[in-house]
């Protein structure tokens, strides 16, 4: 099988490629990223290319390699909302994804897997417990800067059903992916010594280990039919307990005033994205029944508490 992984410079993409090749030594993987790929360890069966997704030679890759499956893990992180980054996010995450989907369709790819996020649902006080995939995507209502995250997910959903007879599309909405190799807002938040530790709220979280997430990405090629899937284990944990498990004392702080104190916090070198403050107040737990139906009940290797204890290794 010939696989294309977009976003190869990311920690999750590298673990996925390694896992995929160790389980299927005859497969070939091409890893593409617009960022530098110098830190990607060479692997037999893995070819890497650094290029922008908007360039003509990106289109040529699709023509010349005839990929069977494409894993799109190249969405730009939504942790920064500076005007410049936001424009780039919209260009890469929305326009870039649209281009990737079109290329997959035109070049006869049979399966495309897109990594979205559970942040599309938003952390709101009226969230039901365990949001299913049908729940409305409300993240950008309060935080317009997250519109690229929601738009990308919705665009993939529309593409999925419009072209369901031509190719199989799988959209994954994982909970917080944490681990030693992945660099995301939650992993950074949990491990920073000055993590804001809410004293006025104690929401619940789900976490998945980066290795388990990579395993699900591999399994999704053969085991998941067209559809959108929440990705989380069945366990959940309160934020304060999670910080205790990671060994982070954090800075006890009333989150209800954190937004107004943002400038003071920045002076203290504590930078928490505004949208994340909502997650430190209200739970956003996702339902995993859809995923379990296809992967079975025991689809994770690491229990939630093990996952958090392993972050200490960072």
């Amino acid at each position, binding site marked *: 099988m010939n696989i294309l992984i977009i976003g190869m410079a990311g920690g999750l993409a590298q673990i996925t490629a390694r896992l995929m090749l160790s389980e299927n030594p005859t497969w070939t993987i091409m890893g593409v990223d617009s960022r530098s790929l110098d830190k990607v360890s060479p692997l037999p069966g893995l070819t890497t290319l650094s290029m922008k997704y908007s360039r003509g030679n990106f289109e040529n890759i699709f023509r010349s390699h005839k990929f069977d499956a494409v894993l799109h893990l190249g969405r730009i992180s939504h942790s920064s909302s500076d005007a410049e980054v936001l424009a780039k996010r919209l260009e890469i995450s929305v326009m870039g994804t649209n281009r990737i989907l079109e290329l997959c369709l035109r070049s006869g790819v049979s399966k495309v897997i897109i990594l979205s996020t559970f942040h599309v649902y938003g952390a709101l006080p009226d969230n039901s*417990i*365990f949001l299913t995939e049908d729940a409305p995507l409300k993240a950008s209502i309060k935080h317009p800067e997250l519109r690229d995250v929601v738009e990308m997910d919705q665009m993939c959903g529309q593409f999925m059903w419009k072209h369901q007879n031509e190719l199989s599309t799988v959209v994954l909405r994982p909970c917080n992916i944490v681990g030693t190799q992945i660099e995301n807002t939650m992993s950074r938040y949990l491990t920073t010594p000055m993590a804001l530790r809410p004293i006025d709220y104690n929401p619940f979280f789900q976490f998945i280990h980066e290795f388990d997430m990579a395993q699900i990405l591999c399994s999704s090629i053969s085991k998941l039919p067209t559809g959108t899937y929440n990705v989380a284990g069945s366990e959940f944990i309160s934020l304060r307990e999670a910080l205790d498990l990671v060994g982070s004392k954090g800075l006890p702080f009333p989150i209800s005033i954190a937004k107004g104190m943002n400038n003071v916090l920045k002076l203290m070198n504590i930078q928490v994205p505004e949208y994340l403050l909502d997650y430190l107040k209200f*739970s956003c737990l996702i339902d995993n029944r859809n995923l379990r139906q296809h992967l079975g009940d025991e689809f994770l290797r690491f229990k939630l508490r093990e996952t958090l204890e392993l972050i200490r290794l960072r």
Partner: protein
Amino acid sequence: MHLSQAFSNVWGVSPEDDAKIKEVFEVLRVKYAGYEDPWGFNLELCEKTLRTILPFYRRYFKVRVFGQENVADVPYLVVSNHTGQIPLDAMLITMAFLIDVQPPRILRAMVERFMAQLPFLGDFAAQTGSILGDRANCQYLLEHKESILVFPEGVRGVSKNTTQFYKVQSFTQGFYRIALQQHTPILPIAVVGAEEMFPFTWHVKSLAKLLSLPALPLTANLFPLPSPIDIHIGKPIIVPDDLSSEAPDKDIKEQVMRVEGQIKKMLAVGLKHRRPFFDEIRKPLSKFILKQDRE
């Protein structure tokens, strides 16, 4: 003597209640062993809170519970009239089901979104068993054999002027659809006495709307008065098997009216047999005056 010791002697938990609390929480610890609650329900905190506020239940509001024999060891959708300006009735019903009803249980009270988003208070409410009033949340809890406390009058039930006291507001239908979906029996409750905690009340609805508050009562007293509370538990109402939870509003409304009617009847009977409100103040005052006269 330390001030806390003196306070405890006057306002502490009686030895009988202390033994009762221990017994109740032993039962609950067995029930909740291994259960993880996604809202943060905390049994230890519930026990501490009960110990702190039980004297209010016993000596301040002098709560009486009637109809305990109607409660069986099954999950219920406990439906009550809503009275008083702050939801103290929810707290008292929950305590009644812990301490005066067998088998003891923690009622999971459905709260408004407004409550859920309050700092500190929202977290405390969640830890003591409250949940956001939402169909998916109720379904989850009923599947886990929990009983839920619902006030189908919503905020309209507690935000009443003095002239509207004990006028039950029309019930919303959501609770009945939940009961149908899970085939859960409805346990009707009538609370008598809570309206008089704040006897003179006027609601500034326009200002409440302006401030995005669910209600804004202006009351003569800021602390609730010691109005004696009676909690009447009615016979369970079994929901029909042949009615779908997605049935049209008119079919559901008929059933909801039945529940509402039963609670209104229980309320009328309860009001006839209630203890007079000012007795709680008058009796000790008359004793004091008589004593002064004799001297």
